[in-house]
């Protein structure tokens, strides 16, 4: 064999459709086996979707079968082929689960994989014994795969209706506790609705069926309305804006009314969400608008919290005994000062280097607070205790719900300020700096002032958040101000949509609120958290509620590349027409 051939890349035979389908089935099967082996499936099954019928773990297995079928159907050319491939892929995935059950029956692996428990075996085999269980797994997998393939091939209208129905049932089942609580607190009518859909343990079978039907009907109507709108000329800009405003309004209304109905636990969760919204809006000024990637953001939060603590607390470290309303503005002002000082050493640092530098600055603040050197002033590791709750007249804002409303009010003020800033001269200067520092300066933007203002104003938001945080806990400890907080805030504005105010709200709800509701899953929550981040960045890099500019950027990308490639090779007249497309 001539040696030169060895240098050529080996060209792989293209996979046949059958091979591909088997491959898809195997991949989904491995996902299922993995989830079972780490103990996630039995854990999920502790929450039921429909009482005594389907647990969340079972639902996950069904979803795996559906996914395998849908993926496999992608490659088929004919409808018959698609269903066949879906069936096969689902069966293969089911067979993998069955194989796991067989292995568990034959050898005890529990000394190595502690999660391969008898409970898992029972769950996999549905308590039917090995033979019966394996048959059900393979058969069920095939059925789910078939359903997945059919769903994929069905017209989008129908698919959306089914998926909306299923999704709503899952949400209604998983969050049954919360939903029941809200319904029962809301009034007589909703109480009886709650009794219709739910037993005290969770979603009943009749309730699930009813919810599926209702959700499907709503989705169907919605699709019809949309189709009719699309039939007319594309929705006018005003309509789009109106719809967006409506969405934002509904979200806000929910935020305002929810804790009243849902009680103090939800109040607590939402208050945390509110604090992250505050910080998110601040960091959004720095990262989203000015393009300053700041990982030391928690430092400003700490400054706000400690200032409030030291000025109001009834403890040995207290510097004064101000009321909360006097201490809060001072905390915010001090945060601004720290933000500006913080910005000075990193003025000339850009991009990734800035992230590392600010991370260092944030850590410095934390280390100083923990140090023995500052202990006489700041209380060291013991922190500052006995911070009084704020009071309005005679009322003390002591309950989580009351403090939530304080957070909400602060967020509303902050959102207004952020919104005005975004559309101000300063906001435009930030955006110009973010895109091109040199050009911005050449157009008259004062680099130093604008950057320091970004740090200072961003810090103001975090300081306000920290101030509320201090009264929420009635105490502050240095261990509360970890790097993880900075990272969380950054993650939530990325997931929500960089540079977008509603995005901050949506991002906090999704990344801070949701994990709190899944608290019983313990450490697994962070598995979801990580997976959600990865999936988001793959599927929707612009975020859940992107800003106008960012949406444009990501949608214009492909078009721009195409134009760049050919544009200037064409004579002037010709690319006018190509660009107009």
């Amino acid at each position, binding site marked *: 064999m001539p040696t030169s051939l060895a240098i050529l890349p080996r060209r792989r035979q293209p996979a046949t459709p059958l091979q591909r389908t088997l491959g898809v089935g195997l991949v989904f099967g491995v996902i299922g086996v993995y989830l079972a082996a780490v103990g996630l499936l039995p854990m999920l099954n502790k929450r039921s979707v429909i009482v005594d019928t389907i647990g969340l773990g079972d639902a996950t297995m069904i979803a795996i079968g559906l996914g395998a079928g849908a993926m496999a159907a992608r490659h088929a050319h004919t409808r018959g082929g698609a269903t066949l491939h879906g069936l096969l892929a689902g069966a293969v995935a089911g067979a993998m689960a069955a194989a796991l059950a067989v292995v568990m029956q034959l050898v005890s692996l529990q000394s190595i994989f502690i999660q391969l428990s008898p409970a898992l075996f029972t769950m996999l085999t549905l308590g039917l014994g090995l033979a019966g269980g394996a048959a059900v797994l393979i058969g069920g997998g095939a059925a789910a795969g078939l359903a997945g393939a059919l769903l994929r091939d069905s017209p989008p209208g129908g698919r959306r209706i089914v998926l909306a129905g299923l999704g709503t049932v899952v949400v209604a089942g998983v969050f049954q506790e919360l939903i029941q609580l809200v319904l029962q607190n809301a009034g007589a009518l909703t109480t009886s609705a709650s009794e219709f859909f739910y037993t005290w343990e969770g979603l009943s079978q009749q309730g699930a069926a009813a919810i599926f039907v209702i959700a499907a009907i709503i989705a169907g109507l919605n699709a019809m309305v949309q189709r009719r709108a699309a039939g007319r000329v594309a929705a006018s800009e005003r309509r789009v804006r109106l719809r967006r405003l409506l969405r934002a309004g509904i979200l806000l209304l929910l935020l305002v009314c929810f804790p009243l109905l849902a009680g103090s636990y939800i109040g607590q969760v939402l208050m945390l969400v509110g604090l992250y919204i505050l910080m998110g809006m601040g960091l959004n000024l720095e990262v989203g608008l000015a393009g300053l990637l700041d990982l030391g953001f928690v430092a400003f939060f700490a400054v706000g919290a400690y200032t409030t603590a030291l000025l109001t607390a009834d403890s040995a470290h207290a510097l004064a005994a101000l009321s909360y309303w006097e201490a809060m503005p001072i905390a915010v002002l001090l945060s601004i000062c720290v933000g500006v000082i913080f910005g000075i050493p990193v003025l000339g640092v850009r991009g990734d280097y800035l992230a590392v530098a600010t991370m260092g600055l944030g850590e410095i603040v934390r280390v100083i607070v923990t140090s023995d050197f500052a202990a006489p002033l700041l209380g060291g590791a013991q922190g500052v205790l006995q911070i009084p709750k704020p009071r309005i007249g005679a009322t003390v804002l002591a309950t989580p719900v009351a403090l939530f409303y304080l957070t909400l009010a602060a967020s509303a003020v902050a959102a207004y300020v952020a919104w005005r800033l975004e559309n101000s*001269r300063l906001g*435009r*200067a930030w*955006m*110009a700096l973010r*895109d*091109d520092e*040199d*050009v*911005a*300066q*050449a*157009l*008259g*933007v*004062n*680099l*130093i002032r604008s950057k320091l203002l970004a740090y200072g104003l961003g810090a103001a938001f975090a300081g306000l958040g920290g101030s509320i945080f201090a009264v929420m806990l009635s105490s502050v400890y240095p261990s509360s101000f970890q790097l993880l907080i900075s990272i969380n805030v950054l993650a939530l504005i990325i997931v929500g949509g960089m540079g977008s105010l509603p995005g901050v709200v949506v991002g906090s709800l999704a990344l801070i609120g949701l994990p709190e509701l899944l608290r019983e899953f313990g450490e697994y929550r962070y598995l979801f958290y990580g997976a959600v981040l990865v999936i988001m960045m793959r599927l929707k890099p612009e975020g859940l509620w992107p800003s106008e*500019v*960012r949406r*444009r*950027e990501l949608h*214009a990308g492909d*078009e*721009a590349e195409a*134009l*760049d490639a050919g*544009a*200037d*090779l*064409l*004579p*002037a007249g010709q*690319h*006018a027409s190509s*660009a*107009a497309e």
Partner: protein
Amino acid sequence: MALLEIDDIHVFYDKIEALKGVSMSVEEGRIVTLVGGNGAGKSTTLRAVSGLLHPRQGAIRYAGETLGQYGAHEIAAMGLVQVPEGRRIFGRLTVNENLEMGAFTQKNRQQIAEDRERMLTLFPRLRERLRQVAGTLSGGEQQMVATARAMMARPRALLMDEPSMGLSPMMVEQVFETIRTINAQGVTVLLVEQNALLALSIADTGYVMESGRIVLSGSGPELLDDERVRRAYLG
């Protein structure tokens, strides 16, 4: 006295001396060009003038003031505005937003609107593209945006860095036509170009630069006829 006077400036990147004593003079209302090969120091000279770099030695005087004490944004506000190399428009903003950014130093809303109208008359193509994202425009159109953006700052002198770079020959013609139009409206132009033939043909005065030094200067036509220039740049 010349509007812009560059007096023996030395600029360093760390220890490397990029400009080794450059002197130039730009008379008000003229087109002055600075030509030379890659890495000769043309862009460095422009960056020093616009305040993005600071000379270690020598002085730059503009309208009777020494620029050394001013930051880049202040120099821009004084009417010395740069059209950067490679256009560097704000790619994710629309054409209109780019123009608004250009008027950052201007306060008078009505005047801004008039200026914008003037620019859209000068570049009719941009009127069609007003709401389009600037990054999706062709290279030639992006150059128009960059030029119009700079003009929105109401410059007294425009510093243009390689406006012909990467454009088709036809587009290059248009760009130079625009430069002449802008100049005829009273704006002084300092043009840095690798395309020496074209640049010298529209310039009143030319300077030839090589490895950080001015090696030749004279009127545009003079330099075009110069044997050394012909050999080095015009082939």
